[in-house]
């Protein structure tokens, strides 16, 4: 058994695997689903809120979405406490970039910065890796709208549409079939709802379990909008009626 190679985060197993990193990825696959979709005029991020209890005080901002700078936002899947550290690192890195260069940090560079930080926990120090995966959504003048996914190993990849967290395979297969890169943000929102409805435990999605953030450009500024409850309900209803009528044909 490769058991004896499990405990040290920074040692390879005989098969050439880093078990701790893989276990961290497992932790994320049990967390609330998050979806990211690139539309032609913006990016849609969606997340499933997991801790639902009537006694929970509503968070001031958002539970899954975190703004990293004016032009970049993120959605998290995994250990929220670990995510908070990385989010702070990303925010400070973004501000330090503006302070030095007087222009916003290109999206990929920010992703790289976070990922390099995550990677160092798989190679030095003997500390466990971060149990967080991110979907970064942002716009910069070099590459326009971009969507990146990063995981505990420190790897990242650019996507047109993807899904992390619980049941992400089901989500990804739906996206593979139905994603169309020429649609606008409104259509992408509906697709995001469809994906979450498929990946969620409960049979019906509702506004209090889902969070949506849309990143678009208005003039020369980026605008990040977290959708209010009624708008979410409206979109869920539209998706449900469309799904119901689909079955009639």
């Amino acid at each position, binding site marked *: 058994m490769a058991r004896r190679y499990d405990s040290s985060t920074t040692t390879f197993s005989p098969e050439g695997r880093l078990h701790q990193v893989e276990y961290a990825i497992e932790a994320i696959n049990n967390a609330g689903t998050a979806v990211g979709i690139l539309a032609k005029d913006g990016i849609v991020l969606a997340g499933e809120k997991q801790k639902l209890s009537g006694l929970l005080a509503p968070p001031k901002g958002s539970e899954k979405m975190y703004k*990293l700078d004016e032009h970049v936002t993120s959605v998290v899947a995994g250990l929220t406490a670990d995510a908070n550290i990385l989010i*702070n690192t990303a*925010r*400070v890195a973004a*501000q*330090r970039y*503006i*302070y030095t260069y*007087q222009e916003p940090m290109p999206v990929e560079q920010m992703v790289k910065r976070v990922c390099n930080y995550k990677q160092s926990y798989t190679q030095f120090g003997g500390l466990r890796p971060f149990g967080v995966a991110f979907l970064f959504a942002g716009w910069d003048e070099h590459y326009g709208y971009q969507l990146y996914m990063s995981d505990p190993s420190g790897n990242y990849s650019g996507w047109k549409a993807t899904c992390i967290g619980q049941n992400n395979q089901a989500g990804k297969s739906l996206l593979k079939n139905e994603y169309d890169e020429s649609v606008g943000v409104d259509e992408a929102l509906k697709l995001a709802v469809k994906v979450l409805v498929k990946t969620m435990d409960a049979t019906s999605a509702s506004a209090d379990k889902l969070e949506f953030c849309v990143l678009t450009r208005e003039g020369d500024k980026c605008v990040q909008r977290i959708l209010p409850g009624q708008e979410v309900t409206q979109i869920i209803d539209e998706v449900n009626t469309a799904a119901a009528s689909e079955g009639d044909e």
Partner: protein
Amino acid sequence: PISQEFPGTMSILEYNGGAVLAMTGKNCVAIATDTRLGMQAQTVACDFQKVFKMNDKLMLGVTGLATDVQTLSQLLKFRLNMYRMREEREIKPETFSALLTHILYERRFGPYFTEPVVAGLNEKNEPFVSAMDLLGAPVFTSDFVVSGTCTSNLYGMCETMYKPNMEPDELFETASQCLLASVDRDALSGWGAVVHVITPTGTISRKLKGRQD
């Protein structure tokens, strides 16, 4: 004592020249600066920005060494953005002022050669002004604050012309006249001026036509 490093001037705070004033009105606040950038006697630019918007209801004016004017405003932008993201709200003028004094005092033994001025409206749209010396010693007044190479002139003008609870238009007039008259008697300030009046509904910014000497 005459400075040997900078002959002709007495202090590093006077090297680039400049003047800022901030004045309170009725639910509004004006902040005005000149736009000269000099190197001792020589004028190098007449469009140098010395007042910086921090958010819709908060502005920062900085006089002193030009490089530190820019660095300080950039540093504060950094800190303000972090504050906004962490606290998920806009910073209050009093808090911003406290942050600024902290940042200045951190450099107690190698300070930023600046004397900033904070002007804003708090959540109840009550006007707030404060000023600091280069080490971060703050001053909070209910009427006006001044900073720069012609503070004596500015104090005299403001003390004479100020009256409380002025409406935005009258406040603009008063602030403009105080600034213009003061910088005209100072060789190191002037060469253009800009005045911002912050009100609950927005900020009105105007450039003043002054003596270009």
